[in-house]
């Protein structure tokens, strides 16, 4: 038990919490934007897989990690646009459209990977790039904190900055107001001259870009290859985090960190003699339980609000 505590109260644990929060946070922000625009976007998992794959392939063939990253992020945006076309123009139910995109992400990436490399399920034969890590000046010299906060992958820092950017976009910019307006009531928004299709499309593209960044992080930061199902449900955990954060970027950050901690605990415990399957289960079970608790208290609060209102 002492061993476990020592492992958890260490600098490297803090470091790995931030590292593992990154993809969940990006998926959560992605969900926040689309939910605010009134679309049940569940494609984080699939979009992340597609971007993770494209990042690896482009960086390998162009020998530029940055180019790979940008193309991966753009691909995420493209998936977002595709989704908006399917949902808004072809009028497909958003959940079912999302399921199709996820299907495309999980099977399509494996298929194209094989077509390109002749290897099934993993991209180690490609010499793909990795995004650089960044040491933050000044902060890196602070004891303990420096070792936890500094030295992360550049995408991690982008993710944490994105929390603020998404908040600023949604609550301080005209576009954000429009996004929230079409989300609350598309008809009312339309009546004051907002182009609903355009606004929702923009929201979905932004959402795709954020998911794409999360995907690129998985294959070009977290690890340096693409493997079948590399995201391992982090898109879904991000969705849960956004729901727990009340579709607000800042509170979603808190819930994402919570799930990042669960993930980091699982990673840490793997070094101890516990059945690995039970350890791997922790993030999912923790998310499930947290979702239930949150929903329970949220419901209670709403009930109380209703009776107080009377």
């Amino acid at each position: 038990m002492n061993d476990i505590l020592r492992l958890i109260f260490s600098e490297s644990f803090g470091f790995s919490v931030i590292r593992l929060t990154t993809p969940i946070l990006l998926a959560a922000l992605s969900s926040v934007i689309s939910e605010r625009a009134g679309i049940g976007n569940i494609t984080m998992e699939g979009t992340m897989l597609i971007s993770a794959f494209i990042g690896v392939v482009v960086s390998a063939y162009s020998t530029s990690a940055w180019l790979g990253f940008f193309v991966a992020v753009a691909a995420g945006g493209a998936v977002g646009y595709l989704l908006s076309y399917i949902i808004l123009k072809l009028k497909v139910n958003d959940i079912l459209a999302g399921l199709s995109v996820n299907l495309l992400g999980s099977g399509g990436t494996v298929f194209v990977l094989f077509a390109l490399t002749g290897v099934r399920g993993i991209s180690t034969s490609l010499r793909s790039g990795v995004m650089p890590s960044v040491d933050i000046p000044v902060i890196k010299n602070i004891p303990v904190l420096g070792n936890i906060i500094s030295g992360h992958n550049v995408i991690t820092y982008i993710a944490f900055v994105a929390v603020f950017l998404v908040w600023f976009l949604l609550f301080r910019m005209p576009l954000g107001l429009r996004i929230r307006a079409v989300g609350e009531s598309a008809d009312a928004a339309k009546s004051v001259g907002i182009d609903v299709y355009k606004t929702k499309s923009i929201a979905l593209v932004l959402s795709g870009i954020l998911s794409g960044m999360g995907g690129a992080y998985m294959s070009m930061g977290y690890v340096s290859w693409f493997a079948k199902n590399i995201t391992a449900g982090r898109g879904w955990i991000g969705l849960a985090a956004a729901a727990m954060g009340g579709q607000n970027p800042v509170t979603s950050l808190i819930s994402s960190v919570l799930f990042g901690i669960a993930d980091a605990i699982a990673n840490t415990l793997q070094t101890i003699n516990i059945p690995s399957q039970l350890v791997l289960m922790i993030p999912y079970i923790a998310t499930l339980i947290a979702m239930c608790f949150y929903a329970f208290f949220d419901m209670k609060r709403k009930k109380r609000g209703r009776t107080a209102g009377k």
Partner: protein
Amino acid sequence: MADKFLKKRTAIMSQEMLDKRIALLRTFLALCIGVLLSVVIIFLVSDVPLESVKYLLIGPVMNLNNFYSMIGMWIPIVITGLAICIMFSANQFNLFAEGAFFFGGVVATMVALSVSLPAGLHPVVCILAAALVCAVIGAIPALMRYKLGASEMVGSMLLNYAILQIGIFLISYFFRDQSAGSLVSGIIPDTARLSKLIPKSDIHAGIIVAVILTVVTYYLMYKTRWGYQIRLTGQNDAFAKYAGVSIGFVTLFSQMLGSAFAGAAGAMEVLGLYNRFSWTNLTGHGWDGVTLGILAGRNPKYIPAAALFLAYLRKGADLMSIKTGMQTDFVSIIQAVILVFLLAENLLSKYKQKKTDELSRQLEAATVMKGGALVE
């Protein structure tokens, strides 16, 4: 008065028929696009495209072995397709079918290896145990939605990831065959295995269950009060509630039943095809069920035909991969594309508009000819 009523009735009937015909046309179009896209992908990727296309398109019926093996693939997805029909009909996007199929196999293996029973009874006990366990687990997302208002979809997905680890844990720590090189269970006793209907083929007794379940599910969904309540809840839960339907019971019941179906399908797959449990990953049968549920428009009646299409495509892809080295994973691309086109309400909408206009003009003319005024 009676005459007018009759006329109105025929008008509604025709509109329904038109809707049906358009839906059929759209399904057909979506399937064609899917097949066409497969061919295009093969030509892009394969070294021997013609050979590959040949195996994809006629491979499953080229000889009896292939055909039997295709039917073997048909059995489990019919049942998971029915499971999705039941769950999605209540408008509950519970995706636990994928995990339930896997875990059903785990439970069946565990029961098969730990109790000894006479041959006829043993598999039945294994399958029922699998169905029961999966029904209980499948209730979790249902309760999350109904009691707490949390997303049953996200809940069921997380459950899928967790159940995979639990299943592998159970097999590898309690039922693993240590002498085997890879992670497999001990040998499942002959008494627990499902008998083959055709010797040395993949067609096992599960096919009978699949056919019976199709009929039973159709009857349940369209001929009983429960089925009506499930569908009503799915179409308009507020109305269902005012009509006195217990929403909680209906959604819970449909998701437990669906999960039980998927669990039983997984159990039969293991007991029917393998002599050991050897899955180390989720199998995709639940996702196939989702495709089928949508392809069949959530109507159990159409599941067998839809499943035949998918099994044919999968077997064709399998053969192609064996004979020409083309990968099978492109089937999921095709699935995704078919789903999108199938669900696209706007596809053919102009055609539908035109036809509806024509229809209503005809009806109007008929009414005028009969001397009936168009006033209420």
